[in-house]
């Protein structure tokens, strides 16, 4: 059965246990961060921060409103990243996880560009960089365990299970409490369906979710481009050199930036 996660944003209280549990299980280092007005930190997901709770405080219906949105790879049913991966490193696994095989990844970053959710991230600081992202804790779920984030959530805001069952749960929750929930399961149809889905109590533009994605699966149109692949492949060598130079420059700039910040 294809697994998935249902994140009920009405239950999330922004404790960020998931963010730490992810780093702990996946052995990801802490990044250098600095004071931020919204509590979100690090500022963005990266090769070393695969899941990030994004905080957003605003005034809504004349009241203060804080939303906490756990973001990570949505593990699309039809992943754009997989469809564009020229190295064949990315795979939608039978259990629903979308994984990147680091041995095959050449760090071309096509997946980064293709992903409608900006998920795959590049190891800017590595000599031989790979793409990195949430694996739905592929190692854990393959052994019958829950992903680290779902296992640690004190609120049970992150449910892990069969995608079909989670959809039923989501629908039941909406039916039971129409005033509490939006009548929308984010990820049920978006980009052709995702394994990670969300329930929200407030309009999605008040959360960190992108409401402006189409329901059509991305590979349907990426494939049109990818048919050009044989011609493109010749260009890959050239492009790779260019990308390496670009990424080196970017890493240097970031390092300088950190120095200036006194970090």
């Amino acid at each position: 059965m294809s697994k998935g996660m249902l994140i009920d944003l009405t239950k999330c209280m922004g404790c960020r246990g998931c963010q730490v549990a992810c780093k702990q299980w996946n052995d990801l280092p802490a990044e250098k961060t600095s004071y931020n007005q919204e509590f979100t930190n690090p500022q963005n997901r990266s090769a070393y921060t695969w899941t990030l709770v994004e905080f957003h405080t605003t005034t809504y219906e004349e009241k203060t409103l804080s939303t906490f949105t756990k973001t990570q790879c949505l593990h699309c049913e039809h992943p754009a990243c997989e469809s564009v991966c020229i190295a064949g490193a990315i795979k939608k696994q039978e259990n629903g996880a979308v994984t990147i095989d680091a041995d095959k990844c050449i760090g071309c970053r096509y997946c980064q560009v293709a992903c409608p959710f900006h998920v795959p991230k590049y190891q800017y600081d590595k000599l031989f960089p790979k793409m990195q992202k949430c694996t739905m804790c592929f190692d854990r779920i393959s052994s019958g365990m829950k992903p680290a984030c779902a296992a640690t959530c004190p609120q049970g805001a992150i449910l892990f299970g069969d995608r079909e069952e989670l959809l039923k749960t989501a629908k039941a929750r909406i039916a039971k409490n129409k005033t509490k929930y939006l009548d929308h399961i984010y990820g049920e149809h978006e980009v052709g369906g995702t394994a990670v889905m969300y329930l929200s109590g407030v309009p999605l533009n008040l959360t960190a979710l992108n409401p402006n994605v189409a329901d059509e699966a991305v590979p349907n149109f990426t494939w049109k481009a990818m048919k050009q692949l044989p011609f493109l492949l010749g260009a890959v060598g050239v492009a790779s050199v260019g990308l390496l130079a670009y990424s080196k420059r970017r890493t240097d700039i970031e390092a300088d930036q950190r120095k200036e910040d006194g970090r």
Partner: protein
Amino acid sequence: MAGLAASFGRGAMTNHWIDYKNADVVIAIGANPAENHPMAMRWIDRAREERGAKLIVIDPKFNRTAAMADIYVPIRPGTDIALLGGILNYALSNDKYFKEYVAAYTNASFLVDPGVKFDDVNGLFSGAAESTDGQVKYDTKSWQFQKDADGKYKLDAKLEDPLCVLQLMKKHYARYTPKMVSDTCGMTEADFQKVAETFCATGKADKAGMILYAMGITQSTHGSQNVRAIAILQLLMGNIGIPGGGVNAQRGESNVQGSTDMALLYNNLPGYMPYPTAAAHPTLAKYNESTPKAGYWTNRPKFMASMLKSWWGAAATKANDFCYEWLPKLDARDHTHMSIFEAMGQGEVKGLFAWGQNVAVGGPNQNKAREALAKLEYLVAVDLFETETAGFWNRPGVNPADIKTEVFLLPAAASFEKQGTVANSGRWIQWRWKAVEPLGESKDDLWIADRLFKAIKKEYAAGGVMADPILKLNWSYGDDEPSAEKVAMEINGTTVADGKLVPGFASLKDDGTTACGCWIFSGYYQDADKPACKNRTKDEPGGLGSNLNWSFAWPANRRIVYNRCAADPAGKPWDPQRPLIAWDGEKWVNKDVPDFGWKNADGSMIKPETSAANPFIMNAEAKGLLWNASSLKDGPLPEHYEPVESLFANKFSKRQFNPAITISGKGDFGQRAEFGDKNYPYVCTTYRLTEHWQSGIMTRNTPWLGEMMPDMFVELSESLAAKLGVANGDRVTVSTVRGEVTAPAMVSARMKAIKVHGKETDVVGMPWHWGYKGMFTGDSANLLTPHFGDANTNIPEFKAFVCNVKRAEGTGPVRR
């Protein structure tokens, strides 16, 4: 804690964490469970999901709990009694209280001495004697209950006599009108009304309302009375002793409950026996004379004798009063945290063990406190990392050569590197097993204490002043490595003759035949092979969640204390859906361990009428105390006073702040902004965040946590920021008469200006987790906080004081 004991008889959470799921309405006031007790939210969420429960959050800041709330209402720091008094007034004047319950289980009907009076002009209860410095000491004679010739309390069952407690309360709180309350607290009348109506809807047999509090309530110059106000409201609503009800004190650390159970507080012996004083209790007989004359505390001599017997073993005999003489006695001075530091500042303290406590961040008025540490001859810090306390001698701005104090840092094992018990807020004593070996040379606390004592004993073996109490102390936890199990058995108690573990405190005797380290824990380690504190069997889902076979709750494994009140006087559960205890006509059917006499020694049942007369077994009055006649220094009923530092005159009376508190000002620790000082125009408060813990010494040394919350900040409203010309991230300096803090301004919608007595008032907030050691540094908020505290407990007023805020140079974090 003082407020809880003064209302119900025990200083602990009445219910337990899992019981939160049984509530219909939950108020979090001065508590922020989503950030500081995240697991609590799971059970609140369960109540909301399964019962449609409502969560009301009352806090100066729109915190993460507020983000989850059904009703959020801002409040000006330090005005909780005004709000709670307003709710009491609403309940009393609109007949919204649970009459049958109040009549049966509280002291509402008790008649008070005819001399009782509250002077509402001067804000003083009868019996006040004012000293020249303005401090008031009360003679509590006129607060006492009337008794008849047989020594029985005089009652008015109709609750109509003007001297009965209910009528005195009605009169007292009639002054707490919605307008007065909302003006004082900085909330709208509509918000006040919404809170009062929603919560008072639980004043019925089939509804349960729960109040959660934490340091926002206790860290005040009227903290004990804040708790009292909550306790009184819960008694009026009939919410004590029932599932989903209670006054639930959420402790700030995993084992604070356990440490106070074990007499962490200087004026307690283990199990909340009062500590003897040299003046009043020179002998055991004198000490025992102070035993309460009624209630379960009449058994105190048994607990005392058993404790002394466990301490001095064979040397303790009936003939020598079980070595009572060897027990050090208290002098007349206060020995709470602040008093210790004031004495230290005067050079009166030679040495300090800061054991798992980072006093150079956690205590108030840090500029003075850190200076005081330099007056010590030696300082021993026992901790996981180099704390600010351990490193006070090389802190920024100090020349180490000027500090003469010798400092030792002993590396301690973390909680998962050692074994032993932790008592949680709900009184559950849970055994924890060691998961990993301690890192490097770090040692568990028991090992350190054991080595320390053995070394001291060795020194005394060569002779010394009063050597016997040391040399003859019963210290038998192992010759080499001390055993936590042996300590646990000593605490549980044994019969001396055969060394058998006792089943509970009912077995303890005052004749020296039993030994017991802490009577309230008795029973938690009765079976050495399978002690109750190691039990790990959960209840089947769907029940009330008592989980009687998961760990052990003191006392006697009772999960909801005062649970006789869960049923009516005839023993019928108030709410048939939540039958905690029930009399079926012949016997008691219990889903909790009864906190009342229910069964005789021969197994025959005690009828409900008997226990109905004695629902609060620890209280001499046997009832829940709406009116407390003597155990608090600042009044039989809570009365609103302003925080010591306040922008506003007290509108309830002429008395500005709690008249019974002590502001010693010894060594100028007690600096305060005088009322009306224009230099400090803003209200200031401090708080904690999910990502850090207490003084931050563990979390600021954990990269993943520091990554999420790297820097100290000052949180202020958009309106104040505009007034100051400060943009988000700009540095600001917050100052009080005691010090300054510089940090980036967090301009946020979470903080809003409030309207107090018609005036727009800005509240500034900041977390207090930072210091100058560890991986993530910044200014400590406690450089600002005042060195005076509650009249009964002397807990500092960390939560409400006045400050100024100015734009500082630069933007971004300030690291130290």
